[in-house]
């Protein structure tokens, strides 16, 4: 800490508390609903205190209770989600790092064209290209495969853009020194740029992992076997649309379970931010 200002610290805590209250409130409601009975959740207003059915609800969800509408086991769906999320996040970060490196540290014909080509992909609504994209994937024989689930989602303008922004802030002296030492560009990339990008990579991994984990529409289209469904589809299938009664307590319990892996990633990756803080302190 630079200086002590108790009033300011108090204010900071106050703002954070309000922020947490507002931002995390829906998550809290989800949790509360997951501990009550279906009838309790439907009451107006529903109680904001945790109910007494926590263990019962979660057991029913995990073991695939008969009236939940989720005949596929949660475990299998979580596995598919995990693979999808990992491939998408690692793939996105890898190819984006490489292309941002190329765009920032090299001069070559068509440099800006390449950058804009990547960048413009940010602006294509999924619904518009979803049918043609499906045809491409079907043509490549990738339906019902992890490749089909992930490849079309791997291209990332966001990540490329972020790394470009970050590389611009890296002092030129570092590259200069590397060049004088006769280090190859890839060596510079590996030994200097990558370690420096740690915080950004961690932030991006969190975001992309969650993005991959929460995919809904695309998996729904490219898979025709329910054993390739990620957990989000499983949850949606439990929410009765219109005609039947929805067992909100079980839906919320599954939603809480589905949130655990991304939450774990958030907590895990925070170490990297903290590390960034410690490094900066030196």
């Amino acid at each position, binding site marked *: 800490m630079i200086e002590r200002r108790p009033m300011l610290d108090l204010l900071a805590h106050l703002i954070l508390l309000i*922020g947490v209250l507002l931002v995390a409130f829906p998550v809290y409601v989800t949790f509360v609903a997951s501990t009550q009975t279906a009838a309790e959740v439907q009451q107006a207003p529903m109680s904001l205190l945790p109910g007494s059915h926590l263990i019962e609800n979660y057991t029913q969800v995990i073991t695939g209770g008969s009236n939940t509408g989720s005949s596929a086991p949660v475990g299998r769906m979580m596995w598919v989600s995990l693979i999808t999320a990992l491939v998408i996040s690692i793939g996105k970060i890898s*190819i984006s790092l490489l292309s941002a490196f190329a765009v920032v540290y090299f001069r070559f014909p068509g440099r800006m064209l390449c950058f804009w080509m990547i960048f413009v992909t940010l602006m294509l609504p999924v619904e518009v290209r979803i049918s043609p994209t499906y045809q491409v994937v079907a043509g490549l024989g990738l339906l019902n495969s992890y490749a089909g689930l992930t490849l079309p989602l791997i291209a990332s303008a966001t990540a490329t853009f972020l790394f470009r*922004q970050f590389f611009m802030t890296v002092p030129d002296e570092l590259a200069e020194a590397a060049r004088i030492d006769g280090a190859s560009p890839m060596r510079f990339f590996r030994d200097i740029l990558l370690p420096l990008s740690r915080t950004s990579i961690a932030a991006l991994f969190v975001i992309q992992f969650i993005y991959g984990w929460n995919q809904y529409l695309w998996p729904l289209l490219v898979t025709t076997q329910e054993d390739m469904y990620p957990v989000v589809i499983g949850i949606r299938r439990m929410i009765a649309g219109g005609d039947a009664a929805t067992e909100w307590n079980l839906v919320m319990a599954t939603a809480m379970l589905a949130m655990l892996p991304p939450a774990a990633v958030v907590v895990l990756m925070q170490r990297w931010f903290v590390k960034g803080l410690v490094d*900066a302190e030196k």
Partner: protein
Amino acid sequence: MNTSAVAGQKRVVFSGLVLPYLLLAPQLIITVVFFFWPAAQALWQSTQMQDAFGIGSEFVGLENFTTLFSTPEYLASFRLTAAFSTAVAVSGLVIALLLAVMANRVIRAATAYKTLLIWPYAVAPAIAAVLWLFLFSPAVGILALALRHVGVDWNHLLNGDQAFLLVVITSVWKQVSYNFLFFLAGLQSIPRSLLEAAAIDGAGPWRRFRTIVFPLLSPTTFFLLVVNVIYAFFDTFAVIDAATQGGPGGQTAVLVYKVYQDGFKGLDFGSSAAQSVVLMLIVTVLTVMQFRFIDRRVQY
């Protein structure tokens, strides 16, 4: 920070003619196969009038576009979208920056705050909107009942302003954690030594923020500004579909929701493709403007 970085140029560059293309290849191949090819199809489709299965189609030139611009509902959607995107992007950024600066300041319970603030991002969009609807449902929602208790008659089903507010709140909520995460990462990469030096020189917290922190955050802010505008333009249809379905009376039907409504739900592919071409043009212009006017001023 570095004057040589003006206009996105690095002073020091590596030589190599093949290497940069090799580095770009994986990204470009995926982009071309999974984005440009489908996009070209969308462009072609915007000049067609065809049935859902694509069995019979007729070339109609720009007719899909002229039809669009002659409907008052579509034109009203432009104003709505401008207001919506501004509201979502600005409030999302301001709230997230405030929280990130505060979270970066405190020591006690810092991890708990951060986790709780990022966690909501893990809620799947497909579920987030259902959740908010659950809270604001005029008949049974907890928040709606609480508002009624303090004398606000919450009925977003008929009150257009409340419906607008509801979709803005939901959209901002979904994006706040994202913005928070990047601001926090940005704040933590600011060297402590700079701030300490300024503090020794007698600069107070606000002055340090204004003269050191915020300028150093500007690449992050610019990145987030672009991402948030695009988010507001393109990624909010699911929220709107679940919360208001564009209603009441079309008062929350932003441009992207109309694309979704006509194309995905209504299977009018020609009109929907034309609408997305219009949408893409708008965002491209916006982004180029952002790059020209803001990126130059951003300090690297």
